[in-house]
């Protein structure tokens, strides 16, 4: 009986992880890719860890599995937010069907702080972020 529960949890977890990977391969821009990978990825690995806890059915291992789930739920949003913020300042190109980008005029370029009012034009991020060609990441240093 418990074996089928373990199989169900593991199948669902593997399916979610596969969905995250397909999303990261197929989505058109960085932020959409992150929305696929962060949510579906942590859901999938959480389900698989629940399967591990159900399979071994032992206090020490259940504690460890729940600790990993808690840690993933705690850290996945933090890591995603930090990398998305860095990519936004780096000028990551948006999908060409994006309707509007309200964040563009609200960041101070000098201090990297967010403002609730529109920032003076001299301090805004550059209006037309230079779109990188494929594979020239390392030439824009300095």
């Amino acid at each position, binding site marked *: 009986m418990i074996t089928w529960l373990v199989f169900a949890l593991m199948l669902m977890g593997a399916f979610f992880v596969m969905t995250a990977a397909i999303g990261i391969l197929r989505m058109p821009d960085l932020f959409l890719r992150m929305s696929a990978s962060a949510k579906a990825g942590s859901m999938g690995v959480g389900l698989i860890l629940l399967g591990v806890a159900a399979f071994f059915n032992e206090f020490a291992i259940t504690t460890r599995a729940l600790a990993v789930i808690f840690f993933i739920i705690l850290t996945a949003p933090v890591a995603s937010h930090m990398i998305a913020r860095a990519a936004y300042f*780096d000028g990551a190109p948006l999908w060409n069907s994006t309707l509007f980008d309200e964040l563009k005029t609200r960041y101070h370029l000098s201090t990297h702080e967010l403002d609730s009012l529109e920032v003076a034009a001299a301090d805004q991020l550059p209006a037309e972020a230079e779109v990188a060609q494929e594979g020239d990441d390392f030439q824009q240093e300095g």
Partner: protein
Amino acid sequence: MSDLLWLIILSMLSLALIAAFIRLIRGPRIPDRVVALDLLSVVVMAFICVYAVRFNQPNFLDVAIIMALITFLGTVAFAYYLERRI
């Protein structure tokens, strides 16, 4: 029956590993690659947990814990230096 189910689970995870790796190679900018690396480690964690159940080795779970820790630190460090670069 259970062999077939293990095969399905492991091939789903392998597909995920390949897809994330393609994005890691192709990703046009550095943030894309960092996100792909993050997902790659999530897939590896899932693999480790499935193997722990398949071969009845609860000690593998410690590897998953360390993996989660290292990945978080790595992503935060990448984000920090990407933002400092500008």
